[in-house]
């Protein structure tokens, strides 16, 4: 009877485990068209070595809540900071969710009661109260050209 009451964070980033999504971040070889946005995401405060940060970029509240990212990236962790640049985004409102896949198994590990045991974060360092961060707290505006955003994940 508790099953239905629980809103596990497991759902938070399940879509990010799809390889197709992970590969959808285009190579940064071509200069972005003037009308597209380029987003450099930096993760700071990485406290556990190894693995990778799995981050998803979402373009609407529905996509954010439903774990349907427009782009996803896997950023190998080699120190307390990890950075990646995402290109080809249309200017507009986005939000980012990420987790640190410490053991490299491609999913956000949880304990048996559904509580994440790997670090996770969202854009704007949107707070979480044992439920996924809210779109309203995490939303950021991307303009044409270069954008930078820093997220603390520990």
């Amino acid at each position, binding site marked *: 009877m508790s*099953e239905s009451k*629980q809103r596990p964070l497991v759902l938070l980033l399940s879509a990010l485990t799809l390889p197709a999504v992970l590969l959808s971040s285009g190579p940064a070889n071509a200069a972005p068209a003037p009308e597209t946005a380029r987003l450099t995401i930096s993760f700071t405060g990485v406290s556990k070595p190894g693995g990778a940060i799995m981050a998803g970029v979402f373009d609407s509240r529905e996509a954010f809540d439903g774990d349907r990212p427009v782009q996803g990236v896997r950023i190998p962790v080699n120190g307390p900071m990890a950075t990646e640049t995402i290109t080809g985004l249309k200017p507009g409102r986005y939000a980012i969710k990420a987790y640190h896949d410490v053991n490299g198994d491609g999913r956000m590990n949880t304990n*048996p009661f559904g*509580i*994440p*045991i790997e670090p996770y974060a969202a854009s704007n360092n949107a*707070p979480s*109260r044992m*439920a996924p961060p809210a779109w309203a707290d995490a939303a950021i505006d991307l303009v044409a050209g270069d954008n930078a955003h820093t997220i603390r994940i520990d």
Partner: protein
Amino acid sequence: MNRRSFLTAAGATATLALNPDSLFAAAAHGDWTLGFADVEADVAPRDLTLIQGRPPGGLSGSLFRNGPARFRRPGGSATHWFDGDGLVRRFRIRDGRASLAARFVDTPRRRTDTAANAVVTGGFGTPHAPGVAIASADDVNCANISVQFAGDELWALWESGSPFAIDPETLETRGLKTLRPDLAGMPYLAHPRYEPDGTVWNLGLAGSRAIVWRLSSSGALEAAEVVDLPLASYVHDFTATERHLVIVLQPWVQVRQSAPLNSGFAWKPELGTRILVLDKADLSRRRVFEADPFFVFHMGDAWEEPDGTVRFDLCALPDAGFAVQGGADLLAGRRPSEALRPELRRVSLAPDGVCRVERTGLVAEFPRTDPRFAGRPRTRTLFAGMGRGDNPLFQSLGIHDGKRDRTDSFDFGARHLVEEAIFTPRPDGDAEMDGWVLGVSVNLDARASELHVFDARRISDGPVCTWRADLALPISLHGQFRPG
């Protein structure tokens, strides 16, 4: 019950502002509020003064106790007794002398609240301040209910999150205890059950599921398994026989996710009380008994008769009033309702599936038993007896003999706020409850905490000795004694 529920947003109504009416009430009432006052800083080791009697030869060791001790901060305060920062106290008795030291558990919660200069982190009965980020239950963990020995460590226990490891000598916090990486952050109740060989059984609750923990006496995890429960009850304690775990599922059940925790529970007496009995050797083997509704925090150790009947005692309350209003009243300086008087009741679970609950009429809380008899037949239960007059909680200690239906007790009078007492055996004795009872009280006239030692066979004679501290610490909840 889903312990995570109280971590969810409290909603727009959340406020931590002090209610002026509460402040007025505190001023208008008696000085028992000393037992719920704030401790501003850690308490350096200090000698206690022997004020009466002679310390018994052979009694040597440390009584560790835990309880909430910081409730109020300039920018906002806790609104429930159970939401204060855990202060671990060590009363050490050695060579006829006694000393006291106390140190707050260094929790993320305490750090957050200290930095905010306000109690912004809610919990059992206190809402969160708006905007507080909480990633896990351990961000709310106030480590304030009890302690457990685990090898060379002392653990400070809460019930909805992880234990905190403490250095028993310096009382310094070593950090959160994760028993296995994949079980990080799983809840761990403050009332583990100990087998006489030191094996530890414990639970952690989440809605109608529980994790069953089994640890060695050194604190190493031996097994962990999740089981389903027939009711999403609030579970603070459980009990055990040599072969079975006994989980009383009261009709205070989680009905929604909300913060604080107690706001998500509803008293539904129509559900009755269920008692789940699990086979320690195979947790899938279970029996469920049904009883009339009652509320319970604490239970005595259980045992089995040769015919398989499971017996134990517990302290029953009429409803969940203390968990909701009573604990809030105490912090606000209001005496909790007179109706909230716990009664010792004897429960038997017969092989034919019938549960009987026998009322003793004895007003009692904090049942403790002889640890050497845990899980085996026993007759005696140590308890704290209810306060009278202006005393809002407890003022006496006693040992009830359930077989002979006799009670041996001592009344400190209404000017002592009496805490849970603990039994420790005499080194050369092996009869049940042959040893000493160690109890702490806050003496309101002396405005000081006192440590009392009783001969457990003669409680009504009064303490064989009493030491007094040079300060009063707020009353604590639970503890353990380690001889040595």
